[in-house]
């Protein structure tokens, strides 16, 4: 469905010693219908820029984005708005608190793409359906973003993304700002929506554990380049690149079952217990 080839983005530098910044450097991958691809990498690795180029928020410098065979990178941004692909690719933004318009209620935020992209006149029924599909209580639809919790804001953002019945959702750090239990709820919701609606996901995150749960394949990016790609299980269990191995080693694990971790822990504990008898009572 989506085929990206040699996609690059070079930003002009700013200031008196301006140097161009190569944000994305010749990335290629493809994504089938119903598939979920994770893009991981540290901050500044160009993963958000890549996502924004595919949703045509940023103009690529070079390369092709083939969506159902048509190169959408060649369409000028002003013309893209009126193309049918505009509604089929939707972007769910990183920080919902900052990306929902503060003067629009949840209802207005979800109704907006229905009016603009779908051309519906009477949106009420569809907004309520969308709110139900993301398990957002209908009572909350009249609230403004600041009156909603983080998890509720995330649900509004997802409902807004689903409004135009897209084929591809670009999810940029969908749960980075959320609590563990809220994160669990949102991840479950996204997983169910993908299966129910047959969506494709491009999941941009720095949390490898989220990729493990949500994606079939993964791409590791560094300094704008692709350093590793493959099925999630293979890449997570046995990364081939040096950077991939460093990244996997840095992920905090809940069970300290690997041997050196346990030894280290025991040594630390014994050192601590020599100093004090134990926690307070």
């Amino acid at each position: 469905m989506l085929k990206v080839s040699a996609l690059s983005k070079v930003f002009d530098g700013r200031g008196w010693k301006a140097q161009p910044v190569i944000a994305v450097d010749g990335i290629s991958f493809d994504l089938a219908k119903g598939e979920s691809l994770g893009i991981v990498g540290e901050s500044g690795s160009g993963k958000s820029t890549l996502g924004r180029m595919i949703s045509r928020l940023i103009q690529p410098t070079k390369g092709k984005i083939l969506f159902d065979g048509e190169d959408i990178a060649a369409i000028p941004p002003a013309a893209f708005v009126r193309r049918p692909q505009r509604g089929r690719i939707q972007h769910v933004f990183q920080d919902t608190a900052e990306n929902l318009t503060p003067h629009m209620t949840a209802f207005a935020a979800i109704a907006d793409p229905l009016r603009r992209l779908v051309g519906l006149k009477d949106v009420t029924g569809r907004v309520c359906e969308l709110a139900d599909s993301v398990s957002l209580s209908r009572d909350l639809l009249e609230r403004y973003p600041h009156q909603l919790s983080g998890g509720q804001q995330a649900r509004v953002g997802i409902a807004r993304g689903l409004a135009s019945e897209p084929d591809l959702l670009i999810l940029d750090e969908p749960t980075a700002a959320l609590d563990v239990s809220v994160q669990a709820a949102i991840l479950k919701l996204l997983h169910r929506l993908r299966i129910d609606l047959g969506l494709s996901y491009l999941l941009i995150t720095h949390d490898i554990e989220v990729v493990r749960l949500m994606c079939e394949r993964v791409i590791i990016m560094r300094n704008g380049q692709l350093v590793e790609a493959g099925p999630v299980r293979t890449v997570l269990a046995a990364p081939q690149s040096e950077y991939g191995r460093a990244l996997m080693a840095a992920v905090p694990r809940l069970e300290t079952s690997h041997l050196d971790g346990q030894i280290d822990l025991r040594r630390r504990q014994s050192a601590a217990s020599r100093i004090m008898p134990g926690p307070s009572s």
Partner: protein
Amino acid sequence: MLAVDGLTVHFETRRGVVRALDRVSLQIAPGEIVGLVGESGSGKSVLSYAISGLLDAAAHIVAGDIRWYGTPIGPVREQRTTRAAVAQIFQNPRASLNPIRTIGQQLADVAGKARVADLLRSVRLDPEKARNYSFELSGGQCQRVGIALALGCEPELLVADESTTGLDVTTEAAVMDLIGDLSARRGMATLLVTHNLALAANHCHRILVMHAGQIVESAPVAMLTTAALHPYTAQLIAATPQHSASADDLQVIPGQLPDLAGVLMPCRFATRCQRHAPDCDEAPPPLVAMTPNHLVACRHPLC
């Protein structure tokens, strides 16, 4: 070194009295790294501010005290007579830096000019960044400057409040290694406030679990992750992606934190608890030691 005993803090607000902390007790020894985990709104930050001496004027200490090597210290730094060498890393790094002075000037204030480059390198920042202002750096870079500032004063106790939340895993690991190294080498104690249970499990000796202003469980890491006693801890572990094999496995903690300004059950977890029984509503459950190191505040613990 630091002992908090029965600390109960209320905030007077227009909505009524918010009972933010309830009978919180903890001790931190030199060289020890203690994790404090819980959902947003569970009172983690209020406790960390009380320890750092940064509590708001609206806060009212109803009971309990904070002691630094046995001497009581107040929750307001300016009123402390005993100097407690506590440094805090703040949640919002950009807001805690001075926007009209360079990073280097601010670091020199706490550590002297000579150590600026070393401090920046220790948090994996280019020493050239000393000439930049906070608005010229990314969020992650600001956060690392905040960490360098806190470590630059060579504190005896470091209070790290969600200090690595916005960082990517490699930088997070580097920062945690640095904190671990300082505690091992100089005996710096650390209170690591986080909602990332896996992070706490990897880098702490002991974890305290907080729910709605109460400490519900306290145990060494290995015990807490393998044999949690409080139902809330078990649910918190089940909600982490690390614990689950697939997205369908993820467990969502039912219900929400109770309104701390409203009517509270004796056990503040009662409304969300699947093991709730009539005797839970009689009196607040005390924090009791099930084994010498493992404390839990529950009348019907797991296991």
